[in-house]
């Protein structure tokens, strides 16, 4: 099958990014947009824009019926779900299939297998991947026994969760019962699934993930990414390849990710997230994200593929066009997420209207954004404004190019975290590479002490 027209069920920078690839491939685009996004950059670029509902995402970007109806009315062959919203919703994938529209993503069964975090852990184990010691618990007594077995402190997670939402650290037995109760209530309200599980809390961990691509039979990997620069489990800086990993560990992780995807006969683009235990020089399976990710451009920068194009090719039913030996990695790439938040006011969100923007251009610099003069940043959605991606022959060159590119990046009219990135990129510890997930909170804490 060849797609002539694709409906994009998303917004913001990822909608623009998917439209760009479709335009290059000669595929027509239909953007499904909420009332708040009808004059967004994506809406201006798409061949057609359909209003699918009110600003609130539950009536628009999460409204399966309206999105599928729009795809049928506009005669789209396929739906690209982007990330977030319905991108990993197996019910949506099934509804697309029933409506005769191709869902650009894995099968509904694969979405189920990795969406339930306990099922994903079981699959990882079956594929030979070490998980973080832990498991499901249904009573406080069970939780006590398990925590004593795997060792304190522990992390409580929601089975239906993801993206760090609803996770709770517990350091001793005392507050375990009350924290569990809170976690169960939150899991029920946030994910509609009250089940929780425990994992050992790894204090000095790095978040390293492996990009995989499968066609349902074969799987290849597209290398590692390091996403350890996080605040409250939200990634702010990513790079590829993950720096300062021993070649043996990197290869083990890449092989493990491929083994996991093969075990599922995985079809499409996916990311296997792992936690590297810096003290033990070991890694643990965390979860799989069955969609394109925000940070995919750093992978594109070092392997030369267009990952949206690969997603489309697989969804059209083509076998993988690349063997593992065709994939050649070159250089180092870093991405900074430019968000509408004020880092001087505890990252307070800053919606509003962009007065003007000036972005760096040139070879080795890429900006993925939906910002332009007059663009609205509505309060209904996330705060991502732009992704600045630079590539260098090595990490030092990438870092120096990032500093130069950040100095040229301007957004007027709304407050952004650009100043945070400028300061972070000057830090000696970050420059050395391979910091753990505790680094950014330490950096922010140290700075607030200096400022006050």
């Amino acid at each position, binding site marked *: 099958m060849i797609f002539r027209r694709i409906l994009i069920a998303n917004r913001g920078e990822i909608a623009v990014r998917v439209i*760009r690839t479709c*335009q*290059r491939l000669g595929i027509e685009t239909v*953007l499904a947009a909420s*009332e708040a996004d*009808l*004059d967004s*950059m994506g*809406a*201006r*670029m*798409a*061949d*057609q*824009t*359909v*209003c*699918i*509902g*009110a*600003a*609130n995402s539950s*009536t628009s970007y999460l*409204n399966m*019926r*309206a999105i599928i*109806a*729009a795809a049928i*009315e*506009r005669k789209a062959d396929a739906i690209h779900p982007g990330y977030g919203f319905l991108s990993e919703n197996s019910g949506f994938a099934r509804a697309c299939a029933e409506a005769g529209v191709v869902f650009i993503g894995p099968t509904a069964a694969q979405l189920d297998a990795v969406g339930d975090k306990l099922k994903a852990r079981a699959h990882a184990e079956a594929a030979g991947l070490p998980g973080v010691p832990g498991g499901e618990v249904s009573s406080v007594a069970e939780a006590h026994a398990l925590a004593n077995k795997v060792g304190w402190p522990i992390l409580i997670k929601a089975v239906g969760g993801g993206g760090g939402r609803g996770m709770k650290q517990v350091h001793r037995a005392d507050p375990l019962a009350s924290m569990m109760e809170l976690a169960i*209530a*939150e899991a029920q*309200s946030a994910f509609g699934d009250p089940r929780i599980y425990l994992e050992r809390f790894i204090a000095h961990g790095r978040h390293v993930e492996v990009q995989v691509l499968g066609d349902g039979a074969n799987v290849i990997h597209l290398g590692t990414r390091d996403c350890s620069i996080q605040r409250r489990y939200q990634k702010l800086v990513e790079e590829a390849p993950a720096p300062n990993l021993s070649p043996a560990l990197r290869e083990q992780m890449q092989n493990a990710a491929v083994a996991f995807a093969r075990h599922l006969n995985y079809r499409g683009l996916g990311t296997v997230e792992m936690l590297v235990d810096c003290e033990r020089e070991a890694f643990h399976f965390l979860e799989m994200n069955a969609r394109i990710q925000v940070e995919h451009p750093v992978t594109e920068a070092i392997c030369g593929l267009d990952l949206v194009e690969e997603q489309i090719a697989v969804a059209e039913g083509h076998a993988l066009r690349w063997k593992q030996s065709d994939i050649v990695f070159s250089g180092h790439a870093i991405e900074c997420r430019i968000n*509408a*938040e004020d880092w001087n006011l505890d*990252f*307070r*969100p800053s*919606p509003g209207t962009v007065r*003007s*923007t*000036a*972005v*760096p*251009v*040139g*070879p080795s610099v*890429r900006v993925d954004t939906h910002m*332009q*003069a*007059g663009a609205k940043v509505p*309060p*209904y*959605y*996330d*705060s991502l404004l732009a992704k600045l991606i630079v590539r260098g022959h090595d990490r030092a060159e990438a870092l120096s190019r990032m500093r*130069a590119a950040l100095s*040229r*990046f*301007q957004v007027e009219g709304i407050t952004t975290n650009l100043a945070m990135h400028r300061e972070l990129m000057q830090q000696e510890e970050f420059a050395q590479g391979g910091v753990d997930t505790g680094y950014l909170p330490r950096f922010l804490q140290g700075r607030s002490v200096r400022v006050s």
Partner: protein
Amino acid sequence: MKFTNQDVKEILALLDSASFDVMSLETERFKLTLRRNRSGEWTQEAQLLAPPNLFKSVETGPVADSNPVSHTSGEHTEGTITVRAALPGTFYRAPRPGAAAFVEEGSKVEADTVVGIIETMKLMTAVHAGARGTVAHIAIQNAQFAEQGALLMRIKPEAA
């Protein structure tokens, strides 16, 4: 409309060999300004002007948003202090769907009592009463959108 990164790259390649430091293009469909700094690095200011090619879906006519509460609504009432939205966002009266509301009209509050939550860009911010007293009036419904500075509640302070 199509205006690609490749277009910009090609224009830059032309400019690199020229002596100009600023180039501005404006058509009905887009505006583009490229500037070169002293180190020879470029920045781009681009704006798509082409209007969207809009279609209405027959399935879902746009659902009218519940009227946003703006800062003009609600008269100032003698002897009460106002609780306003520090950020624009969706106001929630309860910690989660189905749970009891934080406060009702007539509830006694302390200055730090949480009276609601505002969700802005996926971030939940607690709204505090701001004074010790009684909730005199609630000016907004659950899950309604509040503009920045919108009146949320009035509190009748307790005489000190």
